[in-house]
C-alpha cells in the first residue's frame, strides 16, 4: 500500500465521521479561532481605553452631565460590540445574524431623548466609540510600517 492510499479514508462512512471524533481537527479549529478571540479582546480593550480618555477630556472641556451621557453611550457601544462578536462567533448554517442588538441602541436614544439629565449627541458619539477602535485597528494592520 502506498503512502497516498494510507492517507485516504478507507470507507465512505469513515470519510463522513463527524468532527468530534478527530481531536486533532478540533484543536486546529480552536487554534484558528484564537485569532478571532484575540481580535475581539483587542477591540473591546481599545474601546475601553478610548472611552476613558474621551470621558475625562469631555468632563474637562464640558460638564459632568455631558461626560456621563458619553459614558452611557460608550458602555452601550461596548455591549453592542460584544453582542455582534457573539453573533459572528456563532454564525453558521443553523444560526443566522440577529438584529436584537439594534434594540439596545433604540433604548439608548430613547433614554437620552426622554431623560433630562442626558443628551443625545454625546450619547450617540459615545456609542460610536467602538468604531474608532475598529478604525485604529484597521489602520494599524493595513498601513505599512
Amino acid at each position, binding site marked *: 500500500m502506498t503512502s497516498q492510499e494510507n492517507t485516504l479514508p478507507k470507507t465512505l462512512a469513515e470519510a463522513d465521521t463527524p468532527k468530534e471524533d478527530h481531536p486533532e481537527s478540533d484543536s486546529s479549529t480552536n487554534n484558528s*479561532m484564537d485569532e478571532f478571540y484575540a481580535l*475581539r479582546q483587542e477591540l473591546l480593550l481599545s474601546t475601553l481605553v478610548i472611552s476613558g480618555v474621551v470621558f475625562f477630556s469631555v468632563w474637562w472641556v464640558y460638564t459632568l452631565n455631558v461626560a456621563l451621557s458619553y459614558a452611557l453611550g460608550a458602555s452601550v457601544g461596548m455591549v453592542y460590540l460584544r453582542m*455582534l462578536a457573539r453573533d459572528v462567533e456563532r*454564525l453558521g448554517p443553523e444560526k443566522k445574524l440577529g438584529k436584537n442588538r439594534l434594540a439596545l441602541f433604540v433604548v439608548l436614544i430613547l433614554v437620552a*431623548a426622554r431623560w433630562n439629565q442626558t443628551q443625545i449627541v454625546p450619547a450617540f458619539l459615545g456609542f460610536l466609540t*467602538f468604531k474608532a477602535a475598529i478604525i485604529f485597528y484597521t489602520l494599524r494592520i493595513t498601513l505599512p510600517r
Partner: protein
Amino acid sequence: MDPIVSAASVLAAALAIGLAAIGPGIGQGNASGQAVSGIARQPEAEGKIRGTLLLTLAFMESLTIYGLVIALVLLFANPFA
C-alpha cells in the same frame, strides 16, 4: 405640533429607517453567506474569516444605525416641533 409637520416627520422617519436598512441588509447577507461558505471550504482559516466578518459587519451595520438615529430624533426629539 403642527399636524403637517408631525405627519411629515412620521413619514420621514419611516422612509429613513426603511431605506437605510435595504443596502446594509443586502450587504450583510452577502458577506455572511460568503464567510460561511469560505469557512466550509477552509476550516483552518475560520478565525481569520470570522475576524474580518466582524470588522465588515460593524461598518455595514453603522449605516442602518445612522438611519435609525434620524428616525428616532424625528420621532422623539423633533427639532421642527
